[in-house]
């Protein structure tokens, strides 16, 4: 085979051709598409799924329904308790009983403690029935108000793409 560019004046770095194969292979492997494994690698204890239903049934029998009191509705509980106390007071007067209690006799700390530690069992539907939606404000749910700066910070930090806002044309 005839040698090419024998006298062209070009020069090769030392050992270029000897090392060419290795550097080519390195380049190919570095550009190779990353293969993401399709399994997470998680496992479960032996017989876990076989005993699951029994475990859930046992738990269902053991745990009574628990309703977590909502702090934000506290003020409505005060009103409900006040109303109940007034009714009791009137009933007490009508029945000519000697013990007269008024809402003032109940310390605020006692009302707080009652709401905190008593399972009031109000469902969200029951609360919704007595709480007028029109009078609700965002500050009833959140302790701190949301200002425009907070919203912009949130959008900047938590959204990678405008698409995530999921705005369809009819949303505008």
């Amino acid at each position, binding site marked *: 085979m005839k040698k090419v560019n024998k006298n062209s004046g070009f020069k090769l770095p030392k050992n270029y051709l000897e090392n060419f194969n290795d550097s080519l292979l390195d380049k190919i492997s570095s550009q190779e598409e*990353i293969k*993401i494994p399709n*399994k*997470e690698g*998680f*496992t479960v204890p032996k017989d876990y799924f076989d005993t699951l239903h029994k475990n859930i049934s046992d738990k269902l029998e053991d745990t009574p329904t628990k309703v977590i009191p909502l702090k934000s509705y506290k003020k409505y509980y005060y009103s409900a308790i006040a109303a109940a106390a007034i009714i009791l007071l009137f009933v007490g007067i009508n029945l000519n009983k000697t013990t007269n209690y008024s809402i003032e006799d109940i310390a605020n700390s006692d009302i707080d403690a009652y709401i905190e530690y008593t399972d009031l069992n109000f469902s969200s539907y029951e609360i919704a029935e007595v709480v007028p939606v029109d009078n609700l404000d965002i500050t009833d749910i959140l302790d701190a108000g949301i200002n425009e700066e907070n919203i912009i910070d949130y959008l900047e930090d938590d959204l*990678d*793409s405008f*698409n*995530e806002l999921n705005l369809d044309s009819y949303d505008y």
Partner: protein
Amino acid sequence: MLEEQTLLEDLKQTETQTRAFETLVNTYKERLYWHIRGIVLNHDDADDVLQNTFIKVYRNITNFKGESKLYSWMYRIATNESLSFLKSKSKKMGVSNVELQETLLNNLESDVYFEGNEIQLKLQKAIATLPEKQKLVFNMKYFQEMKYEEISEILETSVGALKASYHLASKKIETYIKEN
């Protein structure tokens, strides 16, 4: 669909409830477990969340109006339960969500119920860097091979936005794995 309807009716009636609940648990336990495990990472936590999910389903089945499919509703409960679980865990530990994720990932290396190799561990680390929504979409699409329409019903997000999220998530994961 007919089966789901029958199951729902049986779940709402006292006489058939116990049997129907067993069928429900046996039908969905594995799918929901892997969904939850992908979010909370640790088996014991996943077990807790899964049991709570089924208990919530059982207690609220009478309120289920059938406006979405039963399994979408259950997936939604499982997702919310998992995310609330992580939030309360980070609160209890007094750490941020990011710090909690780091702890969970570090624990994964010594977890007896994790048999992943180096690349699988790296993949979990990459997933942990994603925003919550992208993380959910990636897990559901990639590992659970769910259809966009199914994910859309569960996450109440349009298919277009889900595709964009998945694309972004995959790109970020690829970059993370390449660079680390």
